[in-house]
């Protein structure tokens, strides 16, 4: 029997810090009437300490808590991404929440607990911990999606997200039960070691299929994407930004853990199914995005398409694929978070000013914001030398190496479609006369945070090897 080891607490110290921060925030709410300002400080401090601890504990792979949790480069990489995304989105959401009168302390606590769930998903090497991480994250996001509780659109988006999410949780759990039944363990390392023995078992494959379905829902890959446009449109924009970036990255971390690091399905029927999921997501996401007139909905469909590009790396099933996805996610988190934060600045009260036309002529009123938005749009479209280009480059290269050339070609073709709707926004901002204006003058902190995101997008594009080396497991 394994005994409890004090070192385990050191390996999981970023998680422990965040849990304590979240609990302090909940208590704060009860004792102070105007606790929001303090809550922002406490949560920012908690996240910064957790980032520090993540960097300090970064190192060799070290199983902890009775082989359920893996402290190592993979988990630390993703923890860093989630924490950075969480911190940026908290800075960017503060003014938005104040403007819409939903600035409450619970918001911070929920975001912090969602990050804890995400970090558990990225560090889990046991299906039980993986499941708990998924649920912790999802439960917080259901509440966040309905955070504007007096508004019907927000309620509706929360209900749709909740009902479909819980429905799919049932499948994910049934899949885990079947994997447990056929292998006799929930530990992914043990399952991975004896993978050959199970790979032909029909019940095992049924379990794999159900887990695949559950995780595909969380990354919003077609045909399990139907919730995404509605939920992204109805939820408060700051929540959408967080949900579409960090939560997608967390679900991909779980996807990589299960399908690349545990199972070896490269070149089998399972990887063909993954390739088809990727192809369908790319096509549906990009084609549906063209028809949208609401910017949040356009970005929702674009996130379906990006899930497709990243799934290409999983279908490839090689190490390049894994590194490609990790780079892509790091880039995607910053570019999409930046784009959503500018959408939240333009948005008015009661879901107004969200259509494309509300951006006409933005460059005359807000030249800096228009320029930053253009950077994010160019990067999402995958135009070099921005980070989005290298993300696509790495995953498509991995697909070519795995003899999935058709998928890479389809990826490039659908990216060409995507240029149309991303650049449409840029054209409106610069070459169309209009009265576009931001709803309230953004503060210096907001501008700095958005510029930081844009700077990272540029930096990752100019020096992609920085992140690629960390993703490989070394500096």
């Amino acid at each position: 029997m394994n005994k409890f080891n004090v070192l385990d607490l050191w390996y999981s110290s970023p998680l422990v810090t965040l849990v304590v921060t979240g609990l302090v925030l909940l208590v704060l709410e009860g004792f102070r009437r105007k606790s929001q300002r303090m809550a922002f400080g406490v949560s920012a401090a908690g996240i910064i300490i957790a980032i520090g601890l993540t960097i300090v504990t970064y190192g060799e792979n070290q199983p902890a808590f009775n082989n359920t949790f893996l402290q190592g480069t993979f988990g630390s990489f993703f923890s860093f991404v989630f924490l950075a995304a969480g911190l940026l989105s908290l800075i960017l959401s503060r003014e938005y929440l104040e403007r819409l009168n939903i600035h409450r302390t619970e918001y911070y606590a929920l975001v912090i607990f969602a990050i804890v769930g995400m970090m558990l998903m990225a560090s889990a090497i046991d299906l039980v911990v993986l499941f708990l991480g998924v649920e912790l994250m999802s439960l917080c996001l259901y509440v966040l999606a309905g955070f504007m509780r007096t508004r019907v659109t927000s309620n509706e988006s929360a209900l749709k997200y909740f009902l479909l999410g819980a429905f799919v949780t049932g499948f994910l759990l049934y899949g885990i039960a079947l994997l447990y039944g056929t292998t006799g363990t929930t530990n992914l390392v043990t399952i991975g070691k004896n993978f050959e023995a199970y790979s032909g078992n029909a019940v095992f494959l049924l379990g794999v299929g159900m887990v695949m379905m559950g995780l595909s829902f969380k990354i919003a890959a077609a045909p399990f994407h139907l919730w995404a446009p509605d939920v992204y449109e109805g939820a408060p924009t700051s929540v959408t930004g967080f949900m579409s970036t960090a939560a997608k990255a967390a679900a991909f971390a779980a996807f990589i853990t299960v399908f690349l690091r545990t199972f070896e399905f490269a070149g089998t029927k399972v990887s063909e199914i993954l390739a088809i999921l990727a192809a369908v997501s790319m096509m549906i996401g990009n084609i549906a995005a063209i028809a949208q007139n609401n910017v949040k909905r356009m970005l929702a469909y674009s996130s379906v398409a990006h899930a497709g590009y990243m799934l290409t790396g999983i279908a490839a099933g090689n190490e390049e694929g894994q590194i490609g996805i990790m780079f892509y996610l790091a880039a995607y988190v910053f570019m999409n978070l930046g784009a959503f934060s500018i959408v939240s600045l333009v948005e008015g009260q009661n879901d107004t000013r969200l259509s494309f036309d509300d951006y006409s002529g933005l460059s005359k009123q807000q030249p800096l914001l228009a320029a930053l938005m253009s950077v994010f749009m160019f990067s999402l479209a995958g135009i070099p030398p921005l980070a989005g280009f290298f993300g696509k480059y790495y995953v498509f290269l991995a697909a070519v190496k795995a003899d999935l050339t058709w998928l890479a070609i389809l990826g490039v073709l659908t990216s060409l479609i995507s240029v149309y709707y991303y650049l449409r926004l840029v054209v409106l901002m610069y070459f169309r006369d209009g009265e576009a204006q931001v709803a309230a003058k953004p503060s210096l902190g907001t501008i700095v945070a958005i510029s930081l995101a844009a700077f990272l997008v540029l930096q990752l594009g100019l020096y992609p090897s920085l992140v690629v080396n960390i993703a490989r497991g070394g500096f």
Partner: protein
Amino acid sequence: MIELESYLLLSAITFVIGVIGVLTRRNAIIVFMSIELMLNSVNLTLVAFSAFLGDPTGQMLVFFVMTVAAAEAAVGLAIIIALFRNKQTLNIDEINILKW
């Protein structure tokens, strides 16, 4: 002695009943009850596997699933109440401001 297959069949049938309930019922609370039925059928699978494998992990997972289901019920009912206050309906066909 009841065979493992019988337990698995029973839980599979219950799971399918839950899925059909989610897909065909229109009342949000009934849909939610069907989801709980799905989770409980999974619990039955886990307990059956656990007993036949002689391994306690499955039973431990059941406790986690029950906890998660309780948390989900709290969040879900809160969301349903918030929606009912604004819309006075629980029919998911009428909840359609956002296009599906």
